[in-house]
């Protein structure tokens, strides 16, 4: 915790001011970009930048415990949860740029400006004094000070917090639980379905070449065309410039399968309609 002391009291005022202005600019820019970025994944990454700069700002304010909690809980746990849900919902999901309510963005901007003016006036009228002299609470004994407060003055809210956490965990399990609507298909039924689908053999694996060896490279059929079935539809949905390198004799179009391919045998159909893979197209 010696860093806490350094950040709270030992650091020169100019250094502190420089750090504040750099971090403030980074945080505001990342927050604005988060609101404006169309893709949800970019929003998550930009939010991580905001949260990390806030953690350093906490350290500047002499709260090393909160700085670490911010990194561990927010950037570590909460944002990872966001990213997990984004993977389920689909990484490529983006907001539609069509306004569903007419004039909504203009109204939102006006509300934002109004809120900013209102809060600025309140802050301007409030008497926010200078920082109190940095005592030991802002450095070496920050953790001890917070622990003393939590386990004396705030012991009841602290206990209520534990009940809240248990309830939240239980609620998440109940809400995310998926009820099985039909009976689970047996192995016999699955094999019958497989035979009935007309494709009894497993799907072809991806191509292995001298220069490329990855799941997104299609296998080449005996006539030199690319096997559409060898690449998962989740991956093949993305345009890949490397695909044009392969099979240069014929136009590389993943949407136009070669003559030997059965045109309608979709891979996701054979795989039983995996919900995650379907979702990734959204």
């Amino acid at each position: 915790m010696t860093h806490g002391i350094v950040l709270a009291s030992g650091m020169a005022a100019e250094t502190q001011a420089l750090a504040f202005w750099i971090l403030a600019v980074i945080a505001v820019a990342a927050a604005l970009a988060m609101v404006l970025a169309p893709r949800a994944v970019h929003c998550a990454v930009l939010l991580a930048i905001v949260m990390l700069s806030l953690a350093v700002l906490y350290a500047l304010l002499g709260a090393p415990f909160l700085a670490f909690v911010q990194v561990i809980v927010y950037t570590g746990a909460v944002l990872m949860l966001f990213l997990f849900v984004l993977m389920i919902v689909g990484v490529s999901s983006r907001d539609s740029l069509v306004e569903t309510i007419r004039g909504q963005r203009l109204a939102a901007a006006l509300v934002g400006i109004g809120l900013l003016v209102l809060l600025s006036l309140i802050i301007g009228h409030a008497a926010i004094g200078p920082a109190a002299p940095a005592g030991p609470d802002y450095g070496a004994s920050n953790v001890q000070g917070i622990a003393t407060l939590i386990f004396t003055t705030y012991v009841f809210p602290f206990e209520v917090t534990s009940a809240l956490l248990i309830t939240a965990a239980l609620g998440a399990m109940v809400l995310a639980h998926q009820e099985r609507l039909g009976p689970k298909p047996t192995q016999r039924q699955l094999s019958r379905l497989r035979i009935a689908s007309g494709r009894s053999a497993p799907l072809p694996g991806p191509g292995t070449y001298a220069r490329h060896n990855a799941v997104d490279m299609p296998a080449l059929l005996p006539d030199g065309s690319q096997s559409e079935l060898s690449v998962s539809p989740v991956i093949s949905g993305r345009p890949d410039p490397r695909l044009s390198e392969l099979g240069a004799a014929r136009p590389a179009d993943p949407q136009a399968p070669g003559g030997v391919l059965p045109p309608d045998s979709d891979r996701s159909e054979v795989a039983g309609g995996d919900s995650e893979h379907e979702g990734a197209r959204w």
Partner: protein
Amino acid sequence: MVSPAHFVALAVILFVIGGVGVLVRRNAIVIFMSVELMLNAVNLAFVAFSRMRGNLDGQVIAFFVMVVAAAEVVVGLAILTSIFRARRSASVDDANLLKY
């Protein structure tokens, strides 16, 4: 010299940006992220006021806000996944079953 007022001003700006994000965005996950941004801004104000007052109560409150925000995110994202499973969409425009 940076005073707590600077930190509070930064918190106000971040709070407003988060509020505009909640109003503008259509993807429910991004709306959630904007709510998190607002909570973080309030935390920053709490810590700044704690620094101004010279005691640790503000930091303890910010700690509690973090705990409640974590619980809220867990439940909210579970609701989002179940809505997504039913509707195949994370847009708030598509969850209109209760709309009159």
